């Protein structure tokens, strides 16, 4: 029983990091129908921002977190303005390939500046409590609670504020919404900033949980978060969180009860079956097709 609880705690930690990244994928997809393949690398840059804040500036946890969120948000907006905005009328595939190119560019640019893996110094004093055979660490609790807090914050923005209303309106209709006086470009930039900021927060927390970071760390984590977003129904914010929790839980549970090399196999097979059974994701709605 204690073992189960322990694994659930670990699963929650991994899932909440996936969820923060998946939110960025799903928001961008929802608003401009673009699979932002550079998003995993924004997450990586968030980790490196945290490393720089901690190692060079000597900041403590909260300022470092804020700095990496702001840094990634700026990067996200810059990518959108320079690379995606000129392609909004172009074929969709060109935008996707541009996203892939931007991702590779960011990876290798970081690699040329930081050729060796870096170790993030511990920013938080890690206290562990043992409670009936289950070990809690303060780091784990902070990661889980902070991510859930950020998710509620995002949910509030999207469903309760005028900006969020504009986002939902743009994803609903791109022809008439600008005529209603909604500044489309500005709202799209805000969306990118929010998504990238969350990815930066995820990068910081990932870096604290698994301190060795390298420029290619965003590839696998990013793809997995993307899959989680699709499983939940891409374009749907609550779906992305649900998908991430399914993916994170499956991954941790496979490692807990089977050889760890089976992790990807079992996780991806389950996701494959899930998509085959529900082709539009858990919370996605099937679109009707007209001929």
């Amino acid at each position: 029983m204690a073992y189960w609880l322990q694994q659930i705690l670990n699963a929650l930690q991994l899932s909440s990091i996936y969820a923060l990244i998946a939110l960025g994928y799903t928001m961008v997809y929802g608003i401009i129908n673009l699979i932002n393949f550079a998003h995993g690398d924004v997450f990586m840059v968030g980790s490196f921002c945290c490393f720089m804040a901690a190692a060079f500036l000597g900041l403590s946890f909260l300022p470092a977190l804020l700095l990496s969120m702001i840094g990634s948000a700026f990067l996200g907006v810059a990518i959108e303005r320079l690379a995606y905005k000129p392609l909004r009328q172009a074929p969709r595939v060109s935008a996707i390939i541009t996203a892939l190119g931007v991702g590779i560019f960011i990876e290798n640019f970081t690699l040329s500046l930081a050729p060796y893996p870096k170790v993030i110094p511990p920013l938080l004093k890690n206290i562990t409590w043992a409670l009936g055979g289950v070990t809690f660490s303060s780091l784990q609790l902070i990661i889980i609670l902070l991510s859930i807090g950020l998710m509620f914050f995002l949910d509030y923005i999207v469903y309760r504020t005028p900006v969020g209303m504009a986002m939902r309106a743009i994803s609903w209709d791109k022809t008439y919404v600008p005529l209603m006086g909604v500044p489309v470009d500005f709202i799209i930039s805000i969306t990118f900033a929010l998504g990238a900021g969350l990815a930066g927060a995820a990068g910081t927390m990932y870096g604290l949980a698994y301190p060795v970071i390298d420029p290619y760390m965003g590839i696998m984590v990013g793809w997995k978060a993307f899959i989680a977003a699709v499983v939940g129904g891409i374009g749907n914010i609550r779906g992305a969180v649900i998908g991430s929790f399914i993916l994170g839980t499956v991954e941790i549970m496979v490692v807990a009860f089977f050889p760890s090399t089976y992790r990807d196999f079992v996780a991806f097979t389950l996701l494959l079956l899930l998509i085959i059974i529900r082709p539009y994701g858990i919370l996605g709605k099937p679109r009707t097709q007209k001929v």
Partner: protein
Amino acid sequence: MIPMIQNSWKKTAGQRWLMPVLVVAGLGTSFAVPEYALFNKYIQLVMMYVGINIILTVSLNLVNGYMGEFSLAHAGFMSIGAYTAALLTMRVLPVMDHPWLFPLAVMAGGLAAGFFSLLVSVTSFRIRGDYLAIITLAFLMIVKSVIENIDYLGGPRGLPGIRKLTTLPWTYFWVVFSVWVIRNFVYSKYGRGVLAIREDEIASELMTVNTQRVKILTFAVSAFFAGVAGALFAHVLQFISPRVFDIIKTTDILIMVYLGGIASIGGSILGAVLFTVLLELLRPSNTAAILAFLPDVIFNPVNQHFIQHLGVWRMVIMPLLLVLLMLFRPHGIMGLKEFSWFIPRLDLEAGHPAAPEDNIHEPA
């Protein structure tokens, strides 16, 4: 009068005899280069990589360009072909005494990959667009992780000690064969079905296109050549591991396809050649050798400050070039256009139905 002559030359003589002559000349060259050591070993190696990349790009273009799906599974099919062929040449076929058995192994690799493509094509009946992209991505990851868990295949450590059986003539043969088959497929009755699926799947079904059969066949042909390319690749590299065929490999192939332009065989060949050669040229020693004609006054500072650092920066320059190309030419180098040599005569005279100029439907 003169344009008319030019036109008729282009339409008839241009493609009636030019293509076979070029193909035969190329075959002769591919035998002559290693035989008389016309180029050094390194350039021969690059030529083989170019050939393998052409096969990969043309075959992925069949699914992603002509059929309008977004498949990410190509590296997975490649690894199936590579492992099948490598096992055959290492443990089953006596290739040491009978080198002519090698094409059989390559063929088997392609067939294995084509067989596994059923998994993707059957799911594509119900699932389309971005969700199919995820299916193919998951397929790629599953293939990788299955191979990692089979000890007989070396697991994550990989499979060393493959014989170097891929030669320049064989690479050339498979390149010509794949281009020929895919070109004929695209301009066949099935090819019309493939294009119809890209334009509108439901409408094409209503117009009696058997979409399921067309999809199975298209994915199978595409995967077959991915497997062939994987088999050739394994016998050049002489070592394969699951990590060789991961998502980064797929990304490379995707870049070559969209660099060249979708739904264009000529574009795919150009894209593969440009990408492979440019990446090699950006290696410091090659760039230095090319720029060595400059006077020392210019060459030395350029060499010291720029060329010596290219080893790290070439992977930064390459994606930057790709992004710039996409920004200024979103269709790639020759998206939806085709060299007239590749187009059958009757199609050329009737206009080019494979490329509706301004009627591109996005894969939804």
